[in-house]
């Protein structure tokens, strides 16, 4: 087991290394460089371009540059962004990442939950009329042309109905005399959301062992109410009461993107859940559960869905990597200044250090996601858990 893990670890490092090199070569292959536009400016003397190139080391041979980059990378030095000089890629990512993270973690949690719920219902109500319609809806949202759909949503809810803002993540007018920067508020929001979800999770875990179904439901309900009251108290006291106004502004701007992306993102999970769940429903222990006289809901949730969860979770974790992909489109349509826009900018303007840093960040994220997928597989399936323990 240990040998396998170590082997796997080294393979991962090699893969990451290759990933870095390939990315660098790709960026380098784009014709021109970040400073080509200087040549187009007739007012600048030609030496300026030459000197800028030298300053950023772009005149060195490709091999040397890659070598330097990788050495510096493992020293933790990512250089400076060309277009945002003198800021470093790390600073830029640290600024943009929370915004993307905030939006997409909420989207993913909601999308996963609703997707799983819908998939469960689809498999359970097989052959009914509602199944057909829900399937058609899910397939529509699974295959809908996303930018088009997002624009239509933006037009309808933002423009026609005027319910939501047309983009951006805050109203600048409100923030002129703000004592806080938007990043601070973002951190507060992220912290709040994380703590709340941890508590939600804890409530769920602790009530799991209550024997009677009735009192389990009741205690969960009470827990939810207490959590709600606590968060209300939090937002009306101390510093949070001052931040409330700004946090609300950001939250308001998040509603439409969240809703739109969730509508598109839930379908993948729903359709996959349906398939795996239908396979599980053919298993013998479902028959046992029915013979035991369990309620339909319990058979569905506890027996069928629990087993069907496994492949769904794994594939979900794999798709977390595609968040970045999705964020590129979403962020440019909703003018949400997050990672996606940063990458788009870095790639189109050939800001190699920034693009490399973003790409390697995604790469590390992907590797971690693969790792989590393995772990969660073991966590959810006792058959594998035992193998790992021994």
């Amino acid at each position: 087991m240990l040998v396998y893990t170590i082997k796997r670890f080294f393979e991962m490092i090699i893969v990451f290394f290759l990933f870095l090199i390939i990315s660098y070569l790709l960026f380098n292959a784009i014709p021109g460089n970040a400073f080509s536009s200087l040549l187009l400016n007739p007012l600048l003397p030609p030496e300026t371009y030459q000197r800028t190139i030298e300053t950023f080391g772009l005149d060195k041979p490709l091999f040397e540059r890659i070598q330097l980059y990788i050495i510096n990378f493992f020293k933790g030095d990512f250089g400076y962004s060309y277009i945002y000089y003198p800021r470093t890629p790390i600073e830029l990512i640290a600024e943009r990442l929370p915004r993307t993270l905030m939006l997409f973690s909420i989207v993913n949690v909601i999308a996963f939950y609703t997707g799983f719920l819908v998939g469960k219902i689809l498999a359970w109500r097989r052959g009914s009329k509602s199944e057909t319609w829900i399937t058609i809806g899910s397939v529509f949202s699974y295959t809908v042309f996303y930018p088009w759909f997002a624009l239509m949503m933006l037009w309808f809810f933002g423009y026609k109905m005027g319910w939501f803002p047309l983009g951006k993540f805050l109203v600048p007018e409100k923030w002129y005399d703000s004592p806080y920067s938007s990043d601070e508020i973002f951190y507060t929001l992220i912290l709040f959301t994380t703590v709340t979800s941890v508590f939600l999770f804890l409530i769920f875990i602790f009530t799991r062992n209550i024997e009677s179904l009735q009192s389990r439901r009741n205690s969960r309900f009470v827990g939810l109410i207490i959590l709600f009251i606590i968060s209300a108290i939090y937002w009306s006291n101390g510093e949070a009461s001052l931040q409330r106004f700004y946090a609300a502004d950001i939250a308001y701007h998040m509603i439409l993107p969240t809703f739109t992306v969730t509508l598109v993102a839930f379908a993948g999970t729903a359709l996959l859940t349906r398939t795996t769940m239908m396979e599980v429903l053919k298993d013998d222990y479902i028959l046992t559960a029915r013979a035991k006289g369990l309620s339909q809901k319990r058979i569905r949730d506890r027996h069928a869905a629990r087993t069907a969860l496994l492949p769904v979770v794994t594939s979900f974790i794999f798709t977390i990597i595609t968040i970045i992909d999705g964020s590129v489109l979403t962020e440019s349509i909703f003018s949400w200044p997050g990672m996606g826009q940063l990458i788009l900018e870095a790639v189109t303007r050939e800001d190699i250090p920034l693009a490399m840093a973003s790409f390697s960040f995604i790469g590390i994220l992907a590797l971690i996601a693969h790792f989590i997928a393995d772990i969660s597989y073991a966590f959810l399936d006792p058959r594998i858990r035992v193998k790992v323990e021994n």
Partner: protein
Amino acid sequence: MSKILLEVKNLSMHYDTLEGNVEAVKNVSFNVNSGESFGLVGESGCGKTSVAMTLLQLQPENSIITEGSIKLDGKELVGLSENDLRKVRWDSISIVFQGAMNAWNPVIKIGEQIREAMREHYPQNSKQENINKINELFRMVGLDESISERFPHELSGGMKQRAVIALALSCDPKIIIADEPTTALDVVIQDQILNEIKKVQNLLGLSLIYISHDIAVIAEMTDKIAVMYAGSIVEMGPTKNVFTSPKHSYTRALLDSTPSIKGEKKKLRSLDGEPPSLIDKIDGCSFAPRCPDREISCNPTEHMSLIEIEPDHYVDVCSQGKI
């Protein structure tokens, strides 16, 4: 005269498949008294398991019960709503399935899987009461108490099968269906499990419906048997009578094909041909094409129905003439 617990009357059921209708159960009637053990024997695919599933109303989606009634303790089960059936299942009638390997949900602990059935039927019980009862049941079937906290894959096949028996007993049913409970096990374990079932049945005074293709096991386990062929019962009666003086040619063929350790050596006979496909509706005697006594026998076009030839001993009408 003990009272009739389960009464099945003129039960017919078919499966709606792509190839056509498969008539799996044709006009089956039998009674099971309380405390009695009843055997259902026949070749693979003769409709034994279909009958078992119908008794619990657990038949697959594509099956249709065309006629007949199943009365458990005077209560009609056919056409009962899923919600009412839930109360009957496990509480009055429970089942030990063919493959115990797959009867357990792989991701839930054994004890929890038993407890959830008890929670459903005895909501007033505390967790400790349930645990105590499970421990008692485990002792009864010869299992260690620690099994409760294990996952199914950590158990051997025999242990799983014993646990399934404990599961079947957990809600004090009046009647247990054992659908080939020992097929997947080796002979030694098989024997232990059979003894366990018998012991428990006597101890608790349950009725038992034992389903098997193994005529030797049936002989050992049951008071009364029914022989099934191609979806119908061809002979039914007290086990002793049926074994000593089989009346139907199929029963005789079945007995002839089984070796016996005691008694005189005799040549084993096997039947030619295969059981008929159940897709096409068969008029008259479905056994006629394979019947060794065809020449001397009856009118094969005559419709099947059971005639009582001795007290409690019924035989298919087409064999009746030649005895």
